[in-house]
């Protein structure tokens, strides 16, 4: 699937093309106004404790063949951060969580929010990367944003558009030599999805013509808390 140039604003879930997502019970999708950058994130139905415990490791991800992102069932996430460790081990072979491309945050009232790249179709990060640098590209198969660390000149141009009204996952590496935080979908078989003991992470195809799932952890937490704690 090629990158779609269209950027429909306020694409509604009633649109047939998006029914795929609404049928999934865990994500309604996020629609963001360009000015406010406030995302309304739909979350799963209450269901964690009542469901039978997931069998960790049982999930065997099929290699990703279409542009996809990793959808989070926030009601199932317990905040154990196994995903972070699996990510760090896969990419760096050591426990450098500062480089993990998924990070889980706690909010009050108790909500755990794994935060990772939303694979925005319009990829403002790639657009921000200076043309002559060209350190970022989109994987034509998985849709993931790939970062060539050798080309990155640490100009931080990509950080701002992501922080402004997307997920805010892009950050400086500890040595400030390269950007870190962008999920590469492990080349098509994400280790966080396989390693989640709760089955809270799923691989879901993502359309390429909008920034539908990008939201910052605090905004997600607010929406999830409202959904989980109804009283």
């Amino acid at each position, binding site marked *: 699937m090629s990158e779609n140039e269209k950027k429909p604003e306020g694409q509604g879930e009633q649109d047939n093309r998006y029914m795929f997502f609404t049928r999934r019970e865990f994500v309604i999708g996020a629609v963001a106004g360009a000015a406010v950058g406030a995302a309304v994130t739909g979350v799963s139905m*209450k269901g*964690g*404790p*009542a469901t*039978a*415990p997931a*069998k*960790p*490791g049982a999930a065997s991800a099929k290699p990703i063949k279409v542009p996809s992102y990793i959808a989070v069932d926030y*009601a199932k996430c*317990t*905040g*154990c*951060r*196994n995903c972070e*460790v699996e990510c760090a*081990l896969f990419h760096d*072979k*050591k*426990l*450098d*969580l*500062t480089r993990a491309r998924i*990070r889980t*945050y*706690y*909010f*009050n*009232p*108790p*909500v*755990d*929010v794994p935060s990772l790249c939303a694979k925005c179709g319009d990829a403002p990060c790639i657009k921000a990367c200076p043309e002559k640098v060209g350190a970022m590209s989109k994987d034509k198969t998985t849709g993931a944003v790939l970062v060539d660390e050798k080309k990155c000149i640490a100009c931080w141009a990509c950080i701002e558009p992501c922080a402004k009204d997307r997920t805010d996952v892009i950050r400086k590496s*500890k040595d400030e030599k390269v950007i870190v935080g962008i999920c590469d979908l492990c080349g098509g078989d994400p280790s966080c999805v396989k390693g989640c*003991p*709760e089955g809270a992470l799923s691989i879901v195809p993502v359309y390429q013509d909008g920034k539908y799932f990008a939201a910052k*952890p*605090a905004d997600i937490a607010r929406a999830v808390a409202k959904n*989980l*704690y*109804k*009283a």
Partner: protein
Amino acid sequence: MANGYMGKILEIDLTSKKIGTIDTDMKIAEKFVGGRGLGARYLWERVKTPGLDPLSPQNPLMIFTGPLTGTILPGPSRLVVCTKAANTSPASSSYPKASTVAYSCMGGQIGPEIKFAGYDGVIITGKSEKPAYIVIDDSKVEIRDAAKLWGKNTNQTDLLLSQELGPTFRTMYIGPAGENLVKYAGIITESSRAAGRSGVGCVMGSKNLKAIAVRGTNIVPVADMEGLVALRKEMFNALKTWNGYDQWRRWGTAAMLLASSQAGTQATKNFREGTDLQGAKIGAPISEKEFWVKHRSCFQCPLHCMKIGQVTSGPYKGTIAEGPEYETGTMHGSNCQVTDVAGMMKSIELADDLGFDSISVANVLAFVMDLYDKGVVTSADLDGIEMKWGNVEGMIALQKKIAYREGVGAILAEGVKAAAAKFGKDADKFAMHIKGQEIAAWNIPANHGFAIVYGTSNRGACHQVGPTVEEQQRRTMCDTVVICRFLYYGIGTALFQKALNTVTGWKLDDAAFFRVADRIWNQEKVFNAREGFRRVDDYVPKRMTTDAFTAGPKKGAILPPDKQEQILDEYYTKRGWDTKTSLPTEAKLKELDLGDLAPVVQGLR
């Protein structure tokens, strides 16, 4: 830098506002390993004078991690808060402020974060002139003014810190109970996890320290990373094949509410009974249906034993509390004869929100209800509150009074032992404590092993230390390396021992591993002995040896006085201690490389 250790301990003096680091003393670390072990030794080295007032600026508040903390294994999420306890006291001593060692473990995310920030521990001394909080961002450490946090409940503090610093910081804090020096105040993290016991929140409050926030970017050095990755898989698999795995995940410790009640070991009616005849109302299946919203895990743990519950209807609608889990469900439930489960949730929520040790404060409430029931105190003594069994509104009102030390709250804030002395009459017969620390949710008469568990614990009544010397060694190692005891229940200590060697590069065999535990226990014991604690302080409350259970499957259960003597004799002998005084023998101390303690103990004989 030694593998498994960050090599540095952060040291902060709140009086002079001096911030610095000291090297982790590897000579001590090789003998005492981490967590509770480092706490025991550092406390001994820093508190040279017996009888030090635990609320004085000189008492160090120490937070220690272990070599496994912050590694990729399941369960290394914990830290241990070590200090001289605020809430314990011996039967008699020449020191008016005598108290035991304190160690209080806490899960969540902040333990690993301290290591990621580059420290094996944090030692806080002195007393801030004004309320303060500490922000640790790797090597950048600041003491900040806590004026806007002081007086706030723990949930509000949690929110304010998160708003100010962002969710990348992990925080621990005290509530009004700690600020107002309630002896059994705890330290809270993530709204409802606690280093609850031993009054560590009271010590923190005495330093005018409201909160600690930590963020780190370092990596815990590991001797054999490949080996550790393999071990991680092995441990996760071992947990999955444990037959308790699914139950722990689903119900956590709440699964024990009904089981314990049936076994006659559930604290009921201020420990008068072992079976709650109302128990069916407070079991895990009902809690799951009525309240539970989600599970929560500590760092890397697949057991997610924490359940967050919400009350969705009735007068307590909107209450969000952890649990009930076994301890809170029993202490705020059956032990206070509460049948209104939603009300019980409110009481649990409030205990965390005000920053109490939930176990102790609920024990205090049951103590008051028992006194009221028997007419030892009346509502006139309780500022007009009718503390009938199960009166949730009374429990709520009294908790608030205690947290702010208002009226009778000032008396109850001292714990059941001191409150009983103040009330006079027969009140001490109702005070269910050992060494001044309130007994937790497992009752003793139908399971005499608990007389050893609670009686011999070095921090006063504590349900977690184990009923035999061997079990105590294993659990001491859990608090030392530091891992959660619940994973140990599933897969034992062997894999964690292997993990310790894999992480540190050491080659500790079984004997050496458990000798560390024995050494720690004896170090703590000598500290307590110097304060004046002896055999007489290891007895269960007298009522448990005189009044049998009157109902339930274990009707008639009692701990006969001669049995109490017998099990203590056996225990001390096994420990290599003098049975008359309970003091460790010189031979035992030398065997454990604690020869330097021998002259001290000699002086106590």
